[in-house]
């Protein structure tokens, strides 16, 4: 083998070896960067010690903060959880870079992030220019509970807080198990959840809310609707005749009126005054979904003992 060929072969071997080390999550602690696959299937190279994170989605901000809030340096104006995050925003330790649809590229770059967390396809408009500028942009885009668990564990590894992520999830699983044990004798109740009054909008099969309703011991009367949410008419609610009606908190005024409106009085839940309110935040996509489940359970059966 000639010298140039040997150099070429050695180069290829070295590159192969390097790529083996750097791909996948179980990479060598000696390397400064690791590669993770995000929810859109992109392989993203992320440095080992991530210190400055910008999140463009409230649920991602919440996940980062649950693991290590000090590393969240940029968030959205809609971030509300956990409390530590709100406090840090007030203390100006977290820069608000805008909302999910209108983040400021300049503010994001100004934070000097070493990791930017975005939503799925809807934020690619922002993700692409940031990628071109050389920032590691990672899409966390869970669609169901397993996805949320998986993404939380990946984030744990990225932040070197894998153990903490597993501990939080194990705590949630234990609480869930206890909750299920205490409530397993409950007979399921047919429930209608209204997220908007005019037009009437409710939740369907693919929503996080549906998952929460069912876990709490309810049967979503529109669980056959193959969307996240959809517009329905009062006649359908009368036909499906729910035992319990849950309204998002902002609809108190509307719910007060329904007893006087024709049609609503035909519904069992209205006749028996089984009308309940829930704050929208309980229905958010989060690893802390159990708070929402307990609140819905309270609406369906009263408090858990």
């Amino acid at each position, binding site marked *: 083998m000639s010298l140039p060929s040997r150099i070429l072969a050695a180069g290829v071997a070295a590159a192969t070896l390097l790529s083996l080390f750097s791909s996948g999550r179980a990479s060598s602690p000696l390397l400064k960067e690791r590669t993770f696959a995000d929810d859109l299937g992109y392989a993203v190279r992320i440095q080992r010690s991530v210190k400055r994170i910008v999140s463009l989605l409230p649920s991602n901000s919440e996940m980062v903060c649950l693991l290590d809030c000090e590393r969240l340096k940029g968030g959205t104006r809609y971030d509300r959880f956990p409390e530590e995050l709100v406090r840090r925003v007030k203390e100006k330790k977290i820069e608000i870079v805008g909302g999910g649809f*209108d983040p400021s590229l300049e503010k994001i770059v100004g934070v000097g992030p070493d990791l930017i967390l975005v939503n799925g396809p809807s934020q690619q408009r922002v993700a692409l220019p940031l990628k071109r500028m050389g920032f590691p942009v990672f899409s966390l885009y869970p669609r169901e509970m397993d996805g949320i668990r998986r993404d939380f564990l990946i984030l744990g590894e990225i932040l070197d807080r894998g153990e903490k992520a597993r501990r939080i999830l194990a705590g949630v699983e234990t609480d869930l198990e206890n909750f299920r044990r205490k409530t397993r004798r409950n007979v399921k109740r047919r429930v209608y959840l209204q997220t*908007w009054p005019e*037009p009437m909008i409710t939740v369907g099969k693919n929503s996080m809310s549906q998952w929460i309703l069912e876990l709490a011991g309810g049967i979503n009367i*529109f669980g056959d609707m193959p969307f996240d949410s*959809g517009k329905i*008419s009062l*006649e*359908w609610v009368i036909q499906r005749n729910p035992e319990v009606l849950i309204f998002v908190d902002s609809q108190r005024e509307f719910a007060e009126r329904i007893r006087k409106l*024709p049609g609503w009085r035909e519904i069992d839940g209205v006749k028996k005054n089984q009308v309940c309110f829930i704050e929208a935040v309980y229905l958010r996509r989060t690893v802390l979904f159990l708070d929402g489940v307990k609140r819905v359970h309270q609406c369906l059966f009263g408090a858990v003992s």
Partner: protein
Amino acid sequence: MRRIFWGWLILFFFLLVSLFVALGTGPVKISILALSPRDQTILLHLRLPRALSSFFVGAGLALSGAIFQGLFRNPLADSYLLGISSGASLGAAAALILGFTSPVAMFTGVSFFSFLGSLLALSLVFYFGSREGSFSVFRLLLSGLGVGLFFSSLVAILMIMAEEELKALIFFFMGGFSSSTWDSAWVAVTLVPASLAIALCYSRELNVLLLGEETAQSSGVNTRFIQVTYALVAAFLTSISVSVAGLIGFVGLIVPHVVRMIFGADHRILLPFTFLAGGTFLILCDTIAKAVLAPSELPVGVVTSLFGAPFFLYLLRRERGEYGL
């Protein structure tokens, strides 16, 4: 005359059939022979106001389209082009996002403010469209375009502020009758026929106006009065429709054209036929919107556009050259 007679008969037949289908379609099976109190409530308080709302909103939109097209002698003129719909959108968006409530008990905030928004747009269009007390239809058209664009940008700003209201706003923009009750239906049921009556009073003058303003003036027609009256009636019809059912596109555009193709451009015939045909068309579209994705509903604006957009494109192709497009 024979054609007109058969036209009336066929339109009334279709109207009755579509009303019957609308009243008979729904998730609850109702037997007309054994009506329970629940069935009565559904029939009289949910389905009937919904069917009547869709009829009169469709009739109003089609009528306003026929008037705008005649008045501006432009086959593409409608409430969107004149900025009225943008005014209504702005009102609705403001009510939804800023949480305005209606001072009139029977209206929702969205209905009331979309009505106000469209009236505001109308006043601005007339204000900027006139000069020293006189105006031309083309100036009005341009003024409508300007007001519409300005209001649309305000709507965009409000949409950026929206969070959970965004979905409701999008549904409003697509239009629908899923929340129709007598509270909203009576507005359309009373005011739309009243507008038709006014429109019919001067339909002969509107015909003369089609020949050109100068010809109309020399024939003794008070062109300015006719133009203002019809513009007000058409804009008023649009604002009623929007306040009852949100934004519904294409009814105002396609129905008058279809009627004109079949029965000619005489406004004495065109206006009442368009009224009937528009109402019937929207009842059918709403019935389809209810049924296709049940239990969820398709916004009725999607159904009308699904039929309307291909026709609009066909029209655009057909009218090329004739209108210098």
